[in-house]
């Protein structure tokens, strides 16, 4: 069984979590790809932590407005009816439970729902930005990640070794191999993406995984 890295399948599957009316915050990096897979009029509302509700698609090349950016600093658009607010209001929305789903990137995620995604001590120190607030306040936390590190190691762990962004807050992990629910201190594999058989996925995941396929 050959593994081929596939970020698009992760983004496409995560977009299917959202029902009309859901308020969603997408982290920077891989989670940003999820926006490309949402139906244009699906009624999903994107919140941008830098102070916008109703985040629209990226601005056409050369037609950007430097006062209209997303959380990664990219030039974007705002949907009709969208609005802007300051950073305290933005994080009040996030922390106050008014965001239904957040999708966050991963350095490590473990079977207890712990997430580490903001620092590799002494090496890579990006900082947490809004990730700690998002995990503390969003109703459902989805971790989006390629299943393997560049070294080939599983990003899904028994126990995170890096400093945590949040303890025990991850509800779902979607990788390019499948969908995992985090429940009772174990990963529950609920969907496999072709062509990978469930046993192959379990064998390449460095954690306790229960088969829970529909």
């Amino acid at each position, binding site marked *: 069984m050959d593994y081929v890295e596939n970020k698009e399948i992760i983004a496409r599957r995560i977009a299917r979590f959202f029902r009309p009316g859901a308020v969603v915050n997408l982290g920077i990096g891989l989670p940003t790809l999820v926006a490309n897979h949402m139906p244009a009029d699906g009624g999903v509302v994107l919140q941008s932590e830098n102070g916008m509700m109703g985040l629209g698609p990226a601005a056409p090349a050369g037609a950007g407005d430097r006062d*209209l950016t997303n959380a990664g600093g990219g030039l974007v658009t705002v949907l009709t009816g969208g609005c802007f607010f300051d950073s305290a209001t933005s994080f009040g929305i996030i922390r106050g439970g008014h965001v239904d789903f957040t999708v966050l990137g991963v350095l490590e995620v473990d079977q207890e729902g712990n997430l580490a995604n903001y620092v590799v001590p002494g090496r890579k120190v990006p900082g947490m930005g*809004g990730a700690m607030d998002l995990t503390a306040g969003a109703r459902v936390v989805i971790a989006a990640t390629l299943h393997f590190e560049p070294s080939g190691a599983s990003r899904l762990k028994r126990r995170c070794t890096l*400093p945590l962004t*949040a303890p025990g807050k991850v509800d779902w992990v979607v990788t390019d191999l499948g969908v995992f629910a985090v429940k009772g201190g174990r990963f529950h594999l609920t969907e496999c993406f072709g062509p990978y058989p469930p046993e192959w996925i379990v064998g390449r995941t460095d954690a306790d995984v229960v088969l829970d396929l529909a």
Partner: protein
Amino acid sequence: MIAKPVISAAEAAAMVRPSASIMLGGFLGCGAPLGLIQALLEAGTRDLALVACDAGVHDLKTGKVTAQAHLVRNRQFRQLAVSHIGLNQEIQRQLNAGETRVELVPMGTLAERIRAGGAGLGGILTPTGVGTEVAEGKQTLVVAGRSYLLETPLKADIAFVKARRADRAGNLVYRGTARNFNPLMATAAAIVVAEVEEIVETGALDPDQIHTPFIFVDFLVQAAAPER
């Protein structure tokens, strides 16, 4: 209303004393007071303590440098309290080499600490960071069964903010996502300088649409014409 002095960016930068604490508005350069940052770079004032959303962008490969990253490169800060430094490779290098102190603050906590500083609060209680390294050395309080960190207020000697429009009295209106930390910082510093794209007569702004009330603003600086 008494009109606020309109001063040059260089005059504003001269008000920043060595080792002062300074707040800079903006989110990855959007809504950053770029003219004031340039003037502070030219003034070369050192040992400053920065409070900001982030450290700007400094890409060592392409040489791209934005906003306060110019000041970081010029070694003008002794410490930073920011939420994100991922796009500034130079400050990561200074941090790992022990050259500059960096306190990483969750972004929502940073916003509330600044708001608390301006609103006369003794601190805020937030669930953000409970069970992480952010909680180390901080009081944890349990309210109605949930744990919260006590986070202390942040104030500064001076704040440089950026607005789209001001009237002569100093009322400010921001635009789009350039608002971000600016209105919060305008409440939390002893001296507040607003760099604005346009200054209109007092009375020309709708009182219902003001984002920052004029009493928070001490000085106005005319920004260079924007590229939009």
